[in-house]
């Protein structure tokens, strides 16, 4: 009876979706305003270009090809988002995901280019590297109560420069980039299994994409159906009750972060073993993939399946930025717009609370009118 009265607006799942869409809308609006401020005339065209992304191309073949490119970069983003989400459910904020991603990238490229291992060994190595890095954060958190955010961020930098150093031997002579996986060790490329032909022979489209979605499903099952997930969420919701009931809080903290790290590392291998990108050994900023994963997981309403869509959306606008008219807008503008939208994604929880308070206020008012004497 109560549920009927509240209606679908009070439904938890619906609220999450609504909040996410509100964030997207406000984010786009903000982005549009920034475009207007920089150059009023081109703003309409520019915002459309960002939103349309690959749809800008007239031919269907080109559209599919560039949709493929967006998907290639969605897979690692989704993995990073899942990493953040998995830890978040256990009450840990895994901001170290960026570093774990970098560790994964470094390790899988090293395994592919130096050791010349096949892809199905390179991916586990990437996962191991991510997990090992996360374990450091986990141990410090569990045994020394070092805040995982602080140690995570610090490790991000250490990892970045270590990986730059590690991959220098695999660097091209004339550029800071690592040598092509495709030409050095083709066996390290994740197979396409015919998926590429669906996207106008986009050779970067591999089984990494369906694998990442499979991971999202797996995470959902682990969290909701297993004893491990039960412990994990109990720990996240109430650490003291978890301890009281005899859960191994320290073990779970470390294990959770390690799984998160493995997911992030796997995500990195999904990108770098597709051959789409090479590692630049002189880069001095941690790749944004991990940080965007944080946004994607919140925009996805902290639900593994919602995160699949939010990851795609974030990658969609990020890629869409490259379609801006570079003559009118500086090249950084696309990153600025997408980062504004991503920033707004963090407000999903705020929107939800706001929505709920409005809802209960309206309900109060409704009852008052209805039952007035």
């Amino acid at each position, binding site marked *: 009876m109560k549920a009927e009265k509240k209606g679908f607006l009070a439904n938890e799942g619906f609220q999450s979706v609504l909040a996410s869409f509100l964030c997207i809308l406000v984010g786009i609006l903000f982005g549009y305003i920034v475009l207007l401020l920089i150059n009023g005339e081109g703003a309409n065209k520019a915002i459309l270009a960002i939103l349309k992304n690959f749809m800008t191309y007239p031919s269907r073949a080109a559209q599919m090809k560039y949709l493929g490119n967006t998907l290639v970069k969605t897979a690692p983003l989704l993995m990073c988002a899942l990493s953040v989400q998995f830890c978040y459910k256990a009450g840990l904020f895994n901001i170290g995901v960026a570093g774990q991603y970098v560790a994964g990238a470094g390790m899988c490229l090293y395994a592919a280019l130096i050791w010349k291992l096949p892809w199905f060994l390179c991916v586990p190595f990437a996962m191991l590297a991510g997990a090992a890095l996360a374990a450091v954060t986990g141990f410090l958190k569990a045994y020394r109560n070092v805040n995982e955010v602080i140690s995570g961020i610090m490790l991000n930098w250490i990892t970045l420069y270590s990986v730059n150093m590690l991959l220098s031997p695999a660097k091209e002579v004339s550029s800071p980039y690592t040598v092509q996986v495709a030409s050095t060790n083709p066996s390290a490329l994740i197979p396409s299994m015919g998926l590429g032909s669906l996207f106008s022979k986009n050779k970067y489209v591999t089984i990494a994409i369906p694998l990442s979605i499979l991971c999202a499903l797996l995470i959902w099952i682990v969290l909701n159906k297993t004893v*491990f997930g*039960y412990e994990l969420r*109990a720990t996240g919701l109430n650490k003291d009750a978890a*301890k*009281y009931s*005899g*859960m191994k809080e320290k073990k779970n903290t470390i294990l959770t972060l390690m799984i998160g790290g493995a997911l992030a590392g796997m995500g990195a291998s999904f990108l770098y073993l597709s051959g789409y990108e090479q590692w630049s050994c002189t880069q001095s900023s941690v790749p944004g993939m991990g940080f965007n994963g944080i946004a994607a997981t919140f925009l996805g309403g902290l639900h593994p399946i919602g995160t699949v869509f939010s990851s795609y959306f974030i990658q969609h606008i990020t890629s869409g930025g490259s379609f801006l008219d570079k003559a009118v807008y500086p090249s950084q503008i696309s990153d600025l717009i997408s980062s504004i939208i991503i920033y707004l994604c963090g407000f999903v929880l705020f929107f939800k609370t706001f929505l709920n308070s409005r809802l209960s206020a309206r309900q109060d008012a409704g009852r*008052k009118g209805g039952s007035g004497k």
Partner: protein
Amino acid sequence: MTAEMEKTMEHMEPGSQPYAIEMLHITKRFPGIIANDDITLQLRKGEIHALLGENGAGKSTLMSVLFGLYQAEEGSIKKDGKEVRIQNPNDANDLGIGMVHQHFKLVHCFTVLDNIILGVESTRNGLLEKKEARRRVAALSEKYGLKVDLDAMVEDITVGMQQRTEILKMLYRDNEILIFDEPTAVLTPAEIDDLMLIMKSLAKEGKSILFISHKLNEIMSVADRCTVLRRGKYIGTVDIKDTTREELSRMMVGRDVQLEVEKNESRPGKEILKVSNMSVASKMHKNNAVKNVSFTVRAGEIVCIAGIDGNGQRELVYGLSGLEPLAGGQIFLNGKDITHASIRERSVLGMSHIPEDRHKHGLVLDYSLEYNLILQGYFKQQFRSRMGFLKRPDIRAYANKLIEQYDVRSGQGAVSQVRSMSGGNQQKAIIAREIDKEPDLLIAVQPTRGLDVGAIEYIHKKLLAQRDAGRAVLLISLELEEVLSVSDRILVMYEGEIVGEFDPRKTNREELGLYMAGAKKQDPGRRSGTGINQEGGPSHES
């Protein structure tokens, strides 16, 4: 309804004393419940008016409306006969309404005087000017017999003195209407007597007092009138001189309640828990919170640890349950050394623990009821498949069994979110979970805290049933009534030590009070302490 209205009307007859505050037909709704349904409360000038009701009866909501924290949807508030609007606590302050909260709102690293003047400090040229304030506070303290040390740090003074500081805070602000929210919960018997005298003297000086409580004895001894609420509804207002404890409890609960606990003789069996020379470190200071404590609990008896809050009971339980490591000593359960056993091992070996703080330790509030009911057993074959999946149908069936057996009420049964349940039913869920484990030792820490008479009766019966089923029960309680009526043996704890052991039939509140306050101490040799030499123990003459 009409009878209730008549009762209200009685007190509106002409010629009665004027009202300091009237809350007329207050209705306040929250999504899903009506917290206050047409409630009328009239506080006369210079009277002590008790507000009685079970947990969740709407007392706090009503006080929050009076304090401006909530706005009522219907009804009005009158001060001295004139209608007023109280939009926020500042409005309440301006109208002279002050409140002593259950949990004091004091700054611990400030002196008593600084706390009293905080927020209404007088200044000269932008600098604090405390001379005048000190004179005024001293005068108030003299006038009402509120003994405090103005220059002591709040963190160093007793709880009773902290409460007097709170009262002085209200008086310093010239509040005329004083609300006391469950003020005796944290006090020793002697301090309670003092507080009663203070309240009476305040009323005599013309202050109007609202006294929120569920302790019938205190209401009977200090209040002039009493308004009773039940499940958000106004039940009635009675003159204390024309009523009895039994009538009040019937009004509050809606049925006859057994106020005295009925129990048979205890038949202690073998030793279940043995604690020797246990010490537990304190989180607050460098000394141990539990110092060299030794005692035993046998099958078929309820041993109660009495004491004033903060004398090491919490740390004692943490040490026993494994939440904190011991600083020294040993613990044996069924003869097995569990000093270094993990929490889970202790639980599996037959220890159940009803924790002091059900929200912090006892429950995962955002989990469903069924998930909370398996919190101590989710890892067992019964609920866990070999692949590590939860056996959801089995969990549901088990939860439904417990819900029925222990009468745990909630909105949507097994899938209700525990956060949405009432305090009493949350506690019932914990008790169901801990008792259904069929433990050898049940540790119950303040199991009735914050619960209403009906729920307390239920929990006492359950504890006694455990005892009669041959289990050892260790009860930690701050309520002397409970200590005296439920236990078979009483250990008094003071500053981390056990300072006395008593037979509940041969002692009384006053005697226990002296030990709880540290005024007296038994010679450790006289006690049966370790439980080995039971001949000498005062509790086994039966």
